[in-house]
C-alpha cells in the first residue's frame, strides 16, 4: 500500500536532477528543428560509454578497448566527440548481468549502450537513472525525428510506461527471417509437386515417410524436422492458429479485434494442436524433436535423412554449397508457406523492426544536448553509411549511388558481418540498419527465396511489446511465468500423445484462468492501450 507513495518519494527525490537537465536543454534550445551541424562541438569532447553486446564486451574491436574502431576514428573526426570505453562486466558475456552490475555499482558512464537495454532503461529511466529523450530529440535531433515521423508505431513501442522515450534503438532492416524449406531432389525423385496447401503438405510428408526418397532401402527418413523444437509450432499456422506474436516464441499477439491475447488460449489453437499431435503420431514430425537440439539440421541434412524444415533463409541455403559433394543431387530450397485450412497463406516469422538494443543517456551525463546530436549523427545519411558499411574507401565504395563492399571484403572468406564487427560497423549503437549491407553477401539460392516470398503479402504484424508500470509489472511477474510453464507442459504432453487436447481443453482453460490469465490480459491490454493509443 505504501509502496506507491514510497515510489513517488523516490521519483521526487530525483526530480530536481531531471528538471535541471530539462531546464538547461530548454534554455539552449532553438525554437525550430535544424540540420545537424558538424562538427558537433568545436573542442574535442570525451564521453564515456558502456557497450556490452554479444560480439564484444567493450567499445573496441572484439572487445579490445585498447584499440579504436576505424569507424570510431572517422566519427571522432567528423563530430569531435570521442567515445571512451567504460564498460561494466567485461568478463561476462551475459548482457543482462553486465547491465545489472553497471546499475548496482551506480557509477554510470555518460552513455549506456548494447544488447537488451530496453527493459532496464525503461524500468530505471522513470526512477531517474536515464534522461528522457523526447524533448531532446524534438529540438536537437532532426534525423532521428524524421525517421520516427515515418515510423510512429516504433516510437510508441520504445516508450516507457510514463510515456517518455529513454533510448534510441537499433533498427534492423529486411523483412524475412525463417522460411519453409523442402528437398526439391526428393520431390523430383518421387514425382511430386511442391506442396501448396496443408493437405498437399500432408501427402508430401507421408510420401517422404513411406517411399524412401533417399533411396537407401531403409525407412529412416525424417519428413519434417526443426532445430528449436518451438519451430514445430509453426505448423499451427496451417490450421489458422498462431504460435507467437513476435520474433520470440510463445509471445502474445494482437487479435483481429485489436485485443492482446495469448495464442495458446484460443480455440483455433486447440483444433490446430490436435492436428499437429496427429501428425506427430503419424511419424511425419521428427519423433525426437524435443531433444534433437541445435545439431538437428547438420545431422539430418548431412546424413540425407531430413526432408523439410522451417529455418533461417541465409544459413539454411548454405547447406546447398556445404553438402554439394557429400549428398548427391542435394537441393534444399525455400517454398511458399502452404495455404492453411481456410486458404490463408502466412509467414509468421519475420524480422522485428526494432530491437531492445541501442543506447541511452544517463543522469550522470553533463552534455545531453551534445550527446543527442551525436546520436543524431548516426541517423544522418553519412552516419548511417558509416554505421552500416564501415569506412568509405576502406571497406566500401560508392558505385552508381549504391554503397558496394570492396572485393577484399566480399572475397575474404570471412562472413561480412564478422568483418564489420571488427571495423566498428553493425555495432549495437542506436542506428537504422540498411538491408543493402546484407543483400550483397546473401547467397543466390536465398535471394531467390526472398524474391519468391516477396511475390505475395505473407507477413503478419508483430506485437512490439508493452512497457508496464510498476503495478502492471507486478501482476505480470506474479502470474505469467507460472501460466506459461503450465501452457508449455500441456502443449508438449498433447503433442507427445499423453493427453488429448480436445478432451482436456475445458479443464485447461479453467486452470489458466485460475492461475490469473485474465489478470495478465488485463494489464497487457491496459498497458497496450496507453502505449499505442488503443
Amino acid at each position: 500500500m505504501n509502496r506507491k507513495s514510497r515510489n513517488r518519494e523516490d521519483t521526487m527525490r530525483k526530480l530536481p536532477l531531471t528538471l535541471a537537465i530539462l531546464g538547461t536543454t530548454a534554455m539552449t534550445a532553438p525554437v525550430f528543428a535544424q540540420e545537424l551541424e558538424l562538427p558537433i562541438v568545436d573542442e574535442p569532447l570525451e564521453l564515456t560509454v558502456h557497450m556490452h553486446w554479444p560480439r564484444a564486451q567493450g567499445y573496441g574491436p572484439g572487445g579490445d578497448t585498447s584499440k579504436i574502431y576505424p569507424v570510431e576514428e572517422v566519427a571522432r573526426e567528423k563530430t569531435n566527440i570521442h567515445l571512451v570505453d567504460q564498460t561494466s562486466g567485461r568478463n561476462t558475456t551475459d548482457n543482462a548481468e553486465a547491465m545489472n552490475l553497471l546499475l548496482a555499482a551506480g557509477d554510470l558512464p555518460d552513455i549506456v549502450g548494447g544488447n537488451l537495454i530496453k527493459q532496464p532503461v525503461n524500468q530505471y529511466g522513470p526512477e531517474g537513472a536515464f534522461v528522457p529523450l523526447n524533448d531532446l530529440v524534438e529540438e536537437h535531433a532532426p534525423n532521428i525525428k524524421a525517421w520516427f515521423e515515418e515510423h510512429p508505431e516504433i516510437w510508441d513501442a520504445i516508450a516507457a510506461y510514463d510515456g517518455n522515450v529513454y533510448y534510441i534503438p537499433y533498427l534492423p532492416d529486411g523483412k524475412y527471417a525463417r522460411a519453409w524449406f523442402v528437398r526439391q531432389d526428393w520431390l523430383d525423385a518421387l514425382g511430386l509437386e511442391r506442396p501448396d496447401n496443408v493437405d498437399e503438405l500432408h501427402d508430401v510428408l507421408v510420401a517422404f515417410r513411406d517411399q524412401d526418397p533417399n533411396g537407401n532401402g531403409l525407412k529412416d527418413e525424417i519428413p519434417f524436422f526443426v532445430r528449436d523444437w518451438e519451430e514445430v509450432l509453426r505448423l499451427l499456422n496451417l490450421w489458422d492458429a498462431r504460435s507467437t506474436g513476435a520474433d520470440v516464441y510463445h509471445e502474445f499477439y494482437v487479435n483481429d479485434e485489436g485485443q492482446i491475447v495469448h495464442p495458446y488460449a484460443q480455440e483455433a489453437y486447440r483444433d490446430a494442436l490436435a492436428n499437429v499431435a496427429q501428425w506427430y503420431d503419424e511419424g511425419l514430425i521428427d519423433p525426437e524433436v524435443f531433444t534433437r537440439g541445435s545439431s538437428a539440421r547438420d545431422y539430418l541434412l548431412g546424413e540425407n535423412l531430413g526432408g523439410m524444415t522451417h529455418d533461417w533463409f541465409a544459413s539454411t541455403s548454405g547447406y546447398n554449397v556445404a553438402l554439394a559433394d557429400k549428398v548427391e543431387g542435394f537441393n534444399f530450397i525455400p517454398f511458399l508457406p502452404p495455404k492453411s485450412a481456410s486458404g490463408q497463406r502466412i509467414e509468421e516469422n519475420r524480422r522485428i523492426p526494432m530491437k531492445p538494443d541501442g543506447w541511452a543517456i544517463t543522469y550522470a551525463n553533463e552534455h545531453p544536448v551534445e550527446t543527442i546530436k551525436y546520436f543524431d549523427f548516426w541517423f544522418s545519411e553519412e552516419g548511417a553509411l558509416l554505421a552500416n558499411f564501415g569506412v568509405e574507401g576502406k571497406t566500401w565504395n560508392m558505385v552508381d549511388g549504391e554503397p558496394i563492399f570492396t572485393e577484399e571484403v566480399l572475397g575474404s572468406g570471412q562472413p561480412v558481418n564478422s568483418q564489420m564487427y571488427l571495423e566498428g560497423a553493425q555495432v549495437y549503437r542506436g542506428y537504422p540498419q540498411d538491408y543493402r549491407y546484407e543483400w550483397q553477401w546473401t547467397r543466390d539460392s536465398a535471394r531467390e527465396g526472398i524474391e519468391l516470398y516477396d511475390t505475395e503479402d505473407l507477413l503478419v504484424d508483430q506485437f512490439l511489446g508493452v512497457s508496464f508500470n510498476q503495478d502492471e509489472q507486478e501482476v505480470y511477474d506474479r502470474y505469467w511465468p507460472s501460466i506459461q510453464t503450465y501452457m508449455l507442459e500441456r502443449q508438449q504432453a498433447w503433442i507427445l500423445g499423453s493427453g488429448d487436447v480436445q478432451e482436456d481443453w475445458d479443464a485447461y482453460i479453467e486452470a489458466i484462468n485460475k492461475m490469473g490469465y485474465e489478470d495478465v490480459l488485463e494489464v497487457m491490454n491496459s498497458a497496450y492501450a496507453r502505449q499505442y493509443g488503443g
Partner: protein
Amino acid sequence: MSADLDPAIGRTEELVVEAREAQRSRRPGSLQRVGDHLKREWQLYVMLIPTVLWLLIFLYKPMYGLQIAFKDYSIFRGVAGSPWIGFEHFQTLFGNDQFLRALKNTIIISFYGLLFGFPMPILLALMFNEILNQTFKKSAQTIVYLPHFVSSVIIAGIVITAFSPSAGIVNTIMGWFGIEPIYFLTKPEWFRPIFVGTGVWQEAGFQSIVYLAAIAGVSPTLYESAVVDGASRWQMMWKITIPSILPTIIIMLIIRIGNMLEVSFEMIILLYQPATYETADVVNTFIYRQGIQGGQYDLAAAAGLFNAVVAFVLVMTANTISKRYSRTSLW
C-alpha cells in the same frame, strides 16, 4: 607396584601436576593468557586467517543482501534504498502450486539421490580396497573418477544420445529383445531414474576418495592381528574396515543431508523439457525460471533463504540424532 616397575609413569603424572600447580600459582589475567597463547601458537592462527577471510567475504558479507527477500528490490535503488514489504515474497511462493510441486520434486529427487547415491561410493571404496593387483586398481579408479571431470553439458549430451529413441544404445539393446523404443526424456516417469542414475555414475567414483582415505587410515595392526586370528577377508571388512570408517560415513551423511535441497540444477536444466516438468522441476530450476530469467531477484532470494533454513534444520536434526545414537557428530 607398577610405579616400581615403570618409574616413568609416576614421573609423568608428577610432571603434569607440577605444571598445573605452576599455572595456578601464576594466575595471569585473561588478557595476558590470550597473549601468551597467541605468542606460542601464532603459526596456527596465521594459517587460519585465509579461511576466516574467505568466510567473511564470501559467506558473511553477502548475508547482508539476504534482506532483499523481505524488500521490493530495485537494482538502481540498491539494497538499502529498496522499501520493506515483509513476507510478501514468501506468500507469493507458497501460494504458487508450481513452487510446491518443485519443493516436492526436490525432496523426492534428493531422497532417491541419497538412497542410491550415498552407499555407492562406500561400496566402491570397499571394492577398491580389496583389489590386490595395483595396475588394475589404479586403472579402475581412473575410469570411475573420469566422469566427474567432464562438464555437465557434455554429460547431458551423452545422456540424451544414450536414451535417444532412434540412435540411443539403451533403445537399441531393448530392440534386441523386441521392446518398442521409448522416448525416455519426454516421459515424466523416467526422468528421476535417469537423473539420479546419471548423478551416481558421474560422482560415485570421485566421492569414494574420501572413504579410501579413511580406509588407508585404519591401523594395519588390526588387520595383522585379525590374520593371526584366522579371519577371512569378508570378516575383516565387516568387523574392522566398516566400523573404522563409520565416523567418516556418518559425517558425510550429515553433510549430505544438509545439502539435500541443493539438487544439481544445471543438469536438470539440460535434461528437462516442459513435458517432464511434472517430475523434474525442482526449487532451483523454479527460481531460475521465475526469478533470474524474469529478473525477480527479491523473489529468488526469498526462495533461496527458505532453502537455507530448511537445510539448516535438516543438518541440525541429523547431527542431533547421530550424536545421540552413534556419538559421532559434526559439532
